[in-house]
């Protein structure tokens, strides 16, 4: 008879996160408090993550912007 193995991992339907108002969070950790957030969430909100060995720094994501090529044109007006 096979022995039933103990199930591992997160049970189906459970969630590790809860929703919290930012004002409530500030009241817990303070305005300068450090809160861990997911890198994926940051990226989705347009913030790039720069990792260094010492600490994690946040930098606003900047798309590499190619210099916009200008269309060459000239206008000639005629006197009456």
């Amino acid at each position: 008879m096979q022995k039933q193995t103990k199930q591992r991992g997160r049970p189906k339907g459970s969630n590790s996160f809860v929703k919290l108002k930012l004002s409530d969070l500030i009241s817990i950790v303070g305005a300068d408090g450090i809160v861990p957030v997911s890198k994926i969430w940051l990226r989705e909100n347009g913030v790039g993550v720069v990792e260094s060995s010492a600490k994690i720094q946040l930098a606003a994501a900047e798309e590499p912007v190619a210099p916009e090529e200008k269309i060459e044109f000239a206008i000639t007006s005629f006197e009456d």
Partner: protein
Amino acid sequence: MFDSLIGQDHIKKQLQFYAESHEATGTSPFLMFNGAKGLGKTEFAKQYAKQLKKPLLEINCSTIKNNAQFFEQIFMPVIMDNELTILFDEAHALPKDLVMAFLTVFNVESAKSKRFEWRENTFEFNFEKQTYIFATTELDKLFPPFKDRLTIIDFKPYEANELGSILKGRLDWVNFQDNIVDDISRTLRGNARSAVKRAKEIEMYCESRNTKNFGAKQWNELCDLVGIKAYGLTNTEIEILHTLKTRGDCTLGMLSAATGLSRTAIQRDAETYLLRKALIKIEGTRKITPEGTKVLACV
């Protein structure tokens, strides 16, 4: 009305007719000026715009990369709602997506405007306010259905007497002697822009020598100074003549090997003018003609 321009009489007549009908109908056909460099396409567009009493907007199509760039940088800020004559120069370089857009825009029979929908925006092309002209040196590179929507106007090379008139018109203070204008015109390769450039060189010569007289002696000196050859030949063309003279008849491949030029460069840039002037002929192989030999002896 095109009196200030010399030559291209068939085009003057045609544009005159369109300008008059524009006064009556408020619209003009979509024109395509076709011809080699220096035949006056831009100058004729300028005079036509002047006739229509609309400023001329000249756009270099090789700097347009896509629809977004065109509509954002040019159409919305400069063209829309304004009275303009628009010249799309080097039209063979239009990006493909803009050509596709123009297929829709210029597919009109008698409508005086066309609404073009693109990326949830509507752009109104008002043909009473805007007159569209395209110009190209390479008509064969244009998408055929796009060409079908345009009225093609062919520019032809200038006659020697017309080039002489252009030259003299710019140098009315110079006293030309020894029928030298005919000799000068023969070096201009049927090209009006070359006539303008040559006039500038003669002006520089006369001013630097402090003279108003320009005859054979002065012309020979100027040719020597700035490297003007018989028939206005380029060094590449002279090299081809020289190769044919020394090696005898050559295939295109042999000519390419001897000159170090690609076959395409020889066919596109050098042979055409030599053939037009009957300095060479092609009969299976390339041959120098007696006239070519004579010219080669002079240079």
